[in-house]
């Protein structure tokens, strides 16, 4: 594409000639960036292309982006209407909202305490919190699973949400954000008679809206996309999250690749649409949290 842009023949349309690189270095840079973008975007193109193919064509040796036989209607109809697609979306919503609500409820007071209250051992406590960031869920999943079995909570919404109720990352993020809140305002509030809870509710929260919004985006996206934990704790179809529902087309007897990809496309869509509407919020969320969802 870039070599077309380099030759400045007058027949090239204006929109294309505007892409003309300014120098050879620029052309090379454009090439590298284009390659990078291709690597990023190709899986999505592949997903969409496969979602309109019949199963046997997905892993066909002569791969084409445009399908030879168009099976899009069948695949999408099957995914959207032959299974309770809306229920899966609703389940995902319930799980993500529940997780987020409890995360905010626990993380904000904890972060306020770590950021603004002076107490013995606060540094050690904060160090411990940071250390917890290094423990992946896979380490704790077995004890949590056993625990859930013991209390008979397997295959429930709670079991899907429980391990994520306390987000160490949220505590860390909010603590850093609250640190920047002026001490004098908190002191003025104490003189004026605010209780600590009211300081959080009336003063800290309104100022922390950007951080809360950012974390909400981060948390929502992360748990929407989570496959690992729902796969472990949920079996029944009426509790399945959207991501988990993709797995239905895979069994020991055969895998319906076309439908899997159609399902994946449909499950990804809500987040993509949400992204298009709240792009700025998403970008702020991802940059502030410093982690790609």
């Amino acid at each position, binding site marked *: 594409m870039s070599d077309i842009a380099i030759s400045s023949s007058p027949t090239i349309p204006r929109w294309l000639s505007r892409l003309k690189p300014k120098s050879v270095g620029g052309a090379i840079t454009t090439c590298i960036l284009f390659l990078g973008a291709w690597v990023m975007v190709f899986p999505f193109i592949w997903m969409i292309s496969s979602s309109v193919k019949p199963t046997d064509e997905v892993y066909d040796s002569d791969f084409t982006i445009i399908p030879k036989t168009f099976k899009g209607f069948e695949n999408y109809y099957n995914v959207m209407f032959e299974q309770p697609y809306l229920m899966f979306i609703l389940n995902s919503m319930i799980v993500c909202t529940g997780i987020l609500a409890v995360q905010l409820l626990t993380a904000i007071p904890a972060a306020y305490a770590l950021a603004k209250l002076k107490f013995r051992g606060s540094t050690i406590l904060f160090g411990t919190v940071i250390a917890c960031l290094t423990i992946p869920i896979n380490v704790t999943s077995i004890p949590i699973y056993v625990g859930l079995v013991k209390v008979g909570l397997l295959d429930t919404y709670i079991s899907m949400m429980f391990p994520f109720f306390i987000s160490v990352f949220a505590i860390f993020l909010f603590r850093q954000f609250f640190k920047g809140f*002026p001490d*004098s*305002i908190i*002191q*003025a*509030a*104490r*003189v*004026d*008679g*605010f*209780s600590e809870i*009211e300081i959080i*509710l*009336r*003063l800290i929260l*309104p*100022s922390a809206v950007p951080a809360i919004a950012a974390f909400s985006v981060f948390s929502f996206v992360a748990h929407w996309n989570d496959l690992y934990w729902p796969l472990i704790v949920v079996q029944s179809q009426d509790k399945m999250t959207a991501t988990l529902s993709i797995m239905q087309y895979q069994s020991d007897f055969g895998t319906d690749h076309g439908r899997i990809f159609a399902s994946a496309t449909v499950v990804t869509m809500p987040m993509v649409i949400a992204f298009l509407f709240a792009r700025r919020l998403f970008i702020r969320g991802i940059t502030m949290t410093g982690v790609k969802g």
Partner: protein
Amino acid sequence: MPSGVPLIVFLTGNLGCKMAKLSLKNIKKSFGSTEVLKNISLDVEDGEFISLVGQSGCGKSTLLRIIAGLEAQDAGDILIDGAPMNGREPKDRNIAMVFQDYALYPHMSVGENMSMPLIMARLPMHARLPGIRHFTPAHRREKPGIDADVEKVAKQLRIEHLLQRKPAQLSGGQRQRVALGRALVRNPKVFLMDEPLSNLDAKLRVEVRSEITELHASSGLTFIYVTHDQTEAMTMSDRVALMQDGAFLQVGAPNDLYANPANIDVAKFIGSPEINMIKGAVTSDQVSIGNVALPIALDAPFNGAVQIGIRPEAITINGVPGLAFANQSERTIQMSFNKRLVEDLGPEVLIHGALAVEPNRSIRIRAQKSQNYGERELFASTSQLDVQIDPSSLLFFDPSGKRISSKLKIPTHNNPVELVGAA
């Protein structure tokens, strides 16, 4: 902002004069191994305006925060009207505090900012909850009274037209007034201020300074005012407490600190421009600067080197037309002065230079301009000037910095004091 005359009219009698005596007894505070406050004791009378002044890090702000209850002292007692405040929450101490950065609640309007202390004091918890509060009887009962009180104070401070605005939409001076209003509205016993003027520009600072003084005069409240600016402390307060390294150097009326500093640090801190220091010597009860003997008797027997402080206005210059000097003492010490630089401050001039007896020590002389000032060329051409120093205004300090009190030697027939001419 207009002058503060209407403030007095408005405030007199409007605020109940709820005066309070504040006592600090042996307050100590350390942060880790650093001793920030070393055994501080102080009594503040009803309706007194006292300034805690000192360089940054002297512990004045920590002391104020301890009085407010925002910080706990390690040892000692705080009494307001005889009642011990140790361990009490700030809100239960009946104090109000104004912060350096105003500390207004950023997302609340001016009106909400000012009503917050009243809402917190008069409404129970459930009547303060967002959403539910409008349905509670307590809220319905108290809200009109709160609004009326806020409006009254806003009117007094002439900010009633700003009540709907957010702090971000206000100028520095307006924010300062809102902060004052928020503190005043709860009718506190003690009014604490932590460098409230240092974020204002120089011109506004002078204006608000006089308004705070008037506010104090009219409200009759006990004011404790923390500042690093000696001018603020001198101009506003009934008493000044000068702090250094967590202890009081001297506590007294502003003029007392100026005229009778207890030690060299007080003398240097109080007064602008800074006091001139020159070296002197005492041999067998005779004080002298260089070879000039001074008609001074020290109260305590002393021998050796002394530091002599001369206020910039205690020196007068001879033979320069257009300059007037406040200090017109009959008995003077003649000295020779090398002028280096003249700063024109409008109504007065500052003349920089050095005395001939001590050419390495910079000396400043402050002189008023009189009507015929303008013959500057004459003044500019001469660098050697004859100056006179009023011996009664000299301050003596021993090498450790402690003040040595002194008096003028009265010339008698047997012992006529000779004023030796300049070197």
